[in-house]
């Protein structure tokens, strides 16, 4: 029997800025995090794919190493960009997030170990891989599998955090924290939804990589473009099916939010669907014509918008799930103006400075050579 009074009370401290500020920061930083994660995981999966199907494909190993060498940096980006949504989700949804984390505590804790091993594995491939190509393939597979497991644990925790009605039964059957949320009907489609997106965005990442290599070695760049473009194409086509599976796995009341119940949620879903179809046609045309610019600029722009829309939808879905328990008005707000402004200034200046660093490094304008 679920007792709604079991949902923990938030702590007594007021929000140090209006509610919508945190909502905005959560959605935007989550979108950035998920983009980095997609490039990292999708990149790793496609690197492995390139290696496995290298028969008749002269560039397989080269693509494998070129992409694999980028993966550690993408892991760093994923972690760095993940800290912000981890912070803001605790600001707004701490009582749900902590509770579900405790119920799946060991798997949640194992994320850290998996991540450290995966990360060092990626670095091994990056630094030692070319000298030990056989080991490199295995280690890459190992690390990628760990990342896939981390994604699965995340989906378990986050789905559980949205359904307080399932908590008590889980906790009182065992307090050891070894459980997962396997009985959740949306678990598998939701997980696959995220992982398929990673392959699609990873494909786009390869397209962008191909674009930067176009002038140096067009033949090689075309091979990367073909691999990345097709990965995007097939993954996005699969995604349409998985997306509907996910939608129909939701409890009816929640599904209806996206099917007319809430105008914003419905429009975003329609936009996402149409944009996905447009991106499929656009990528298909780009591949046929060998027009990498269309793929790199056109499809990437559309995909960025889709990811942002999906991040908002994810938030709307969480709100719908938590509606019986969660009310934004429950927060007292007492804005801490000076630290808030310092953050805003640093956030903007830090972002600008970040681009300055990349520019000075020569990422946008060729390389500055050693004398």
């Amino acid at each position, binding site marked *: 029997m679920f007792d709604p*009074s*079991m949902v*923990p*009370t938030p*702590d*007594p*401290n*007021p*929000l*140090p*800025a209006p509610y919508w500020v*945190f909502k905005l*920061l959560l959605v935007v930083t989550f979108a950035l995090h998920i983009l980095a994660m997609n490039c990292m995981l999708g990149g790793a999966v496609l690197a492995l794919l390139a290696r496995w199907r290298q028969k008749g494909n002269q560039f397989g190993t080269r693509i494998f190493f070129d992409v694999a060498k980028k993966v550690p*940096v993408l892991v*760093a980006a994923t*972690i*760095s960009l993940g*800290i912000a949504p*981890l*912070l803001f989700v*605790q*600001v707004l949804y*701490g*009582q749900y997030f*902590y*509770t579900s*984390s*405790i*119920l799946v*505590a060991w798997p*949640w*804790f194992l994320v*850290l170990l998996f991540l*450290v091993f995966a*990360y*060092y594995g990626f*670095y091994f491939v990056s*630094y030692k891989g070319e000298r030990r190509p056989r080991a490199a393939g295995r280690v890459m597979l190992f690390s990628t599998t760990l990342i896939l497991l981390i994604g699965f644990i995340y989906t378990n925790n986050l789905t559980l955090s949205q359904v307080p009605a399932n*908590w008590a039964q889980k*906790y*009182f059957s065992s*307090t*050891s*924290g070894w459980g997962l949320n396997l009985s959740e009907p949306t678990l598998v489609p939701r997980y696959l939804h995220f992982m398929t997106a990673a392959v699609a965005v990873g494909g786009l990442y390869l397209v962008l990589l191909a674009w930067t290599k176009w002038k140096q070695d067009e033949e090689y760049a075309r091979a990367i473009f073909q691999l990345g473009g097709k990965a995007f194409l097939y993954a996005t086509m699969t995604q349409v099916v998985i997306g509907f599976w996910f939608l129909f796995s939701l409890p009816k009341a929640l599904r209806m939010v996206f099917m007319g119940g809430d105008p914003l949620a419905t429009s975003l879903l329609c936009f996402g669907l149409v944009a996905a179809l447009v991106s499929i046609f656009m990528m298909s045309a780009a591949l046929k014509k060998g027009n990498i610019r269309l793929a790199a600029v056109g499809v990437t722009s559309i995909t960025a918008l889709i990811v942002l829309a999906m991040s908002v939808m994810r938030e709307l879905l969480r709100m719908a799930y938590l509606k019986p328990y969660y009310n934004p008005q429950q927060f007292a707000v007492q804005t801490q103006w*000076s*630290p808030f402004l*310092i*953050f805003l200034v*640093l*956030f903007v200046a*830090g972002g600008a400075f*970040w681009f300055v*660093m*990349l520019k*000075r*490094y*020569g990422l946008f304008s060729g390389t*500055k*050579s*050693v004398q």
Partner: protein
Amino acid sequence: MNYPVWDVAFGAGLLMALVAGLHVFVSHFAVGGGLFLVLTERKARRNKDSQLLTWLKFHTRFFVLLTVVFGAVSGVGIWFTIGLISPTATSNLIHIFVWGWAIEWVFFFLEITAALLYLYGWDKLEPSLHEWFGWVYFIAAFASMVVINGIITFMLTPGHWIENHQFWSGFFNPTYAPSLLFRIFISLALAGIYALITASVQKDAEVKKRIVRWGALWTVPSLLLLPVFAGWYIRAIPHDLWASARGAMPTGTHFALLACMLLAGTFLLALISLIRPTRLHLAFALLLAVVAFGAMDSFEFVRESVRKPYVIENYLYANSVYAASMPGDGGFTVDNINTAGVLKTARWVENRDLTQANQIAAGHEIFRVECESCHTPNGYRGIHQYIVKRQWDRDKLHAMLGVLFLMHNNVMPPFAGTDAELNALTAYLGSLQPMNPPADLHPDGRAVFEQNCSMCHQARAGDHLFTNMPKDPQTAVSALGSLPAMFPIMPDLKLSEDERRALVQWVDTQRPLLAAQGGN
């Protein structure tokens, strides 16, 4: 109490100590090591020392693989772990300092980017630009320490925040400055210590010598300065809290002693490395690192020990009960729980009502919500061991649970709950180790003291037991038989007459010794 409790068989506290302990040892290196990288690069370039540069390139890779990978993941790991073990404290710290965390995140993001560009830039960038990335890295890493230091010190000395709840009052709290300086010098010392690890595997003896000497220049002066800042730090901690590390609390005292010894050990080993720098072996460098790790973690243990019974001093007890009631406390205050009962207040318990049949089950649930944030039944800080060591029977256990808040310089939170709940907790703890000690006809006075008094009293000059106990043995023996009547705060120990007599005799033998100590 507000949240479910994760049952970690070997102790959640130990897991926390492991994650945090490893993280701080790497994260401080991430700060000092950053400055070390740029200054060493500049020195090598000025002296046109290409061998040193080659080593530094190798050292950079070691640095990045350790700080960017392990440092970053274990830093996130602290968040994961405290959220699992102390969700209420985490939630409070998040809400009080959201903008502090967010600012720290901006610096962290720049720090990681700069570290990677510095690493990958070794073969790519002009020297001045490469050094520029090194400086960016160091400044960002240092800035993130400047921010995080405010939040860590807040937990020990929240200062005026307790009254005004202002961000800056909590941030720039009484231990902010000494802690920051203390940590800066730890960081610089660690930069030199870690340098020895990569130096030790250098084949060229001359290069090795140069690095070892250069590393010692970072380690030795920093270690010499540490006690100065430690002294300042200690003076900024309220005196009664610091007493926990000066004998009143075993854990705090042991770790304080260990910190001093290991710090001295680090210093000595650093000096020894200078004797034959050309022959520095990896095993020696690792030993030095391990000793330094022990010193640093002991210091962090002391910091956490003297903070007890609080996780945020004077605000939130380690077991997530608020020290005073306030709007939004959810009823999780000692006063409220004493009235309403812990089983009725806690959210995550099954036995809402106490019956004769569920004493032990309910007691276990009370243990879980009130004690398990620090203790386990049988593992880390296991209650079972305490009971066995002190030979407590159920009555004594019950009496002791009633005066938890007096123990070891008040480092335990009070038991919160009704009398019936205290009985249930006693029943559960008693079930861990049924005790029926045989009546000892000739009890040992010292043992009686250790088992019954030493939780609150210490054999030292000025302790009330030794100064206030009546000088006349017979009066003292009968006084000990009716302690609660004379001092309502004292537990009813129900000592037998033989035990009381032995205790009085032993106390009398100690008095001259203690008086001599006090006189000195």
